[in-house]
């Protein structure tokens, strides 16, 4: 299934790997921080509501 | 110049600290602000001096009429005492520093670099600057910090002279200044916290 990349295989593959890793890191970090913020905010809101 | 403050709300770091402050300061009058540490005295005075915008409410009569003296002295250590004063005099367009030097007994120190003054001497220099501004409303944040008894009475005399000349003064302090002035306790303006559910444009 893998296309024949000829003598430039390393070049093309490293470009794809680097870009996809960067994109994935961006998305995952965004999601992780978003989740954490959501949880923290909910905890804080609950705590404040309980205190009155 | 009458300073009129109506329904003022002020915030520090995005959190309202005082709410619904009303006060009127007429020429010839002094008003002493009291309140525990962290109630918002400094914040209120900085707002009146125009250094930060109020959250809501109005301030009238504060335009180019206020001389502010805060926690920091604004003194350049490498300039002499008289150079420091002369600079502020020319910024404010006053014509002489002699009365200021006399009022705070700085004559002897006039040629000393300000950096070599003791804490109290520096404070006297900072206060003497009020006299060269020529501004009618003095807004003072704990003016007598580090001052000895003699210097406190010099300060009281300077304030009285200023009031007698039709000026007015708003002073935040924790100790007694020996002035007969109205006292306003800021405790009753402490901002109320809003309920959490109320998630509006201010994020609060």
């Amino acid at each position, binding site marked *: 299934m893998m296309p024949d990349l000829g003598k430039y295989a390393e070049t093309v593959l490293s470009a794809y790997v680097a870009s996809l890793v960067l994109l994935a890191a961006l998305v995952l970090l965004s999601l992780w921080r978003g989740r954490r913020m959501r949880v923290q905010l909910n905890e804080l809101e609950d705590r404040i509501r309980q205190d009155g | 110049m009458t300073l009129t403050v109506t329904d003022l709300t002020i915030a520090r770091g995005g959190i309202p600290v005082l709410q619904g402050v009303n006060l009127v300061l007429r020429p010839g009058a002094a008003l002493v602000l009291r309140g525990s540490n962290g109630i918002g005295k400094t914040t209120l005075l*900085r707002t009146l*001096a*125009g*250094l*930060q*915008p109020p959250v809501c409410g109005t301030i009238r009569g504060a335009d*180019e009429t*206020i*001389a*502010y003296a*805060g*926690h*920091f*002295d*604004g*003194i*350049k250590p*490498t*300039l002499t005492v008289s*150079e420091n004063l002369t*600079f*502020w005099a*020319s*910024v*404010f*367009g006053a014509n002489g520093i002699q009365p200021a030097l006399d009022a705070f007994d700085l004559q002897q120190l006039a040629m000393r670099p300000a950096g070599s003054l003791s804490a109290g001497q520096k404070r006297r220099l900072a206060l003497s*600057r009020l006299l060269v*501004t020529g501004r009618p409303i003095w807004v003072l944040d704990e003016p007598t910090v580090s001052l000895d008894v003699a210097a406190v009475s010099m300060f009281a005399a300077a304030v009285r002279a200023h009031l007698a000349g039709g000026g007015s003064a708003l002073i935040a302090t924790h100790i007694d200044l020996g002035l007969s002035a109205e006292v306003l306790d800021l405790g009753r303006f402490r901002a109320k916290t809003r309920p959490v559910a109320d998630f509006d444009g201010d994020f609060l």
Partner: protein
Amino acid sequence: MIALLLRDLKLAFRAGGGFGLGLAFFLILTVLVPFSVGPQSSLLSSIAPGVLWLGALLACLLSLDRLLALDWEDGSLDLLATAPVPLESVVTIKALAHWLTTGLPLVLVAPLLGVLLNLPVAGFFWLVISLLLGTPALSVIGTFGAALTVGLKRGGLLLSLLVLPLYVPTLIFGAEVARRGAAGMETTTPLLMLAGITAAVIALLPFASAAVLRVNLR
């Protein structure tokens, strides 16, 4: 206004030599270059205009961090903001004082350092001209950066990060003038661009600086 300028100049002189220090930095940097890239004089002479421009730029940059910070720390800026002078003229005066104490001396001493780096004879004139036209822009842009970071302790490096990209066009055209001049080529286009940048920056940036300073005083 004049009073503020005089005070700033006086402070610069009292603070241990005033403009002497900017010059010294420039000098030392120029001396370090042969140590680091090696002493071949043909190499040095080909990089001389660029090194001198870069040195002047860095000397400017390094003196920025105290341009407004000192006045902020000791409360003078609070007092100036409540004084009957517009903040726009305060920042303009500050930039002018900075140029007089840093930029101008650099311009005057640059030819001497050119000798150290084997700058071609034709280059001296253009080096001075380009620095004379370019350094005011450096001071004004730097004041903007200083206004942005005033109030941040350890703001020095952040200041560099913010200001250096803004210095790029000035540096490119300035160094281009000096380089072309040294090589005996036509310099009119970059010179005009340099002058244009300086004029525009002086006319517009003080408004941004004052706005930013107001925000920081809150």
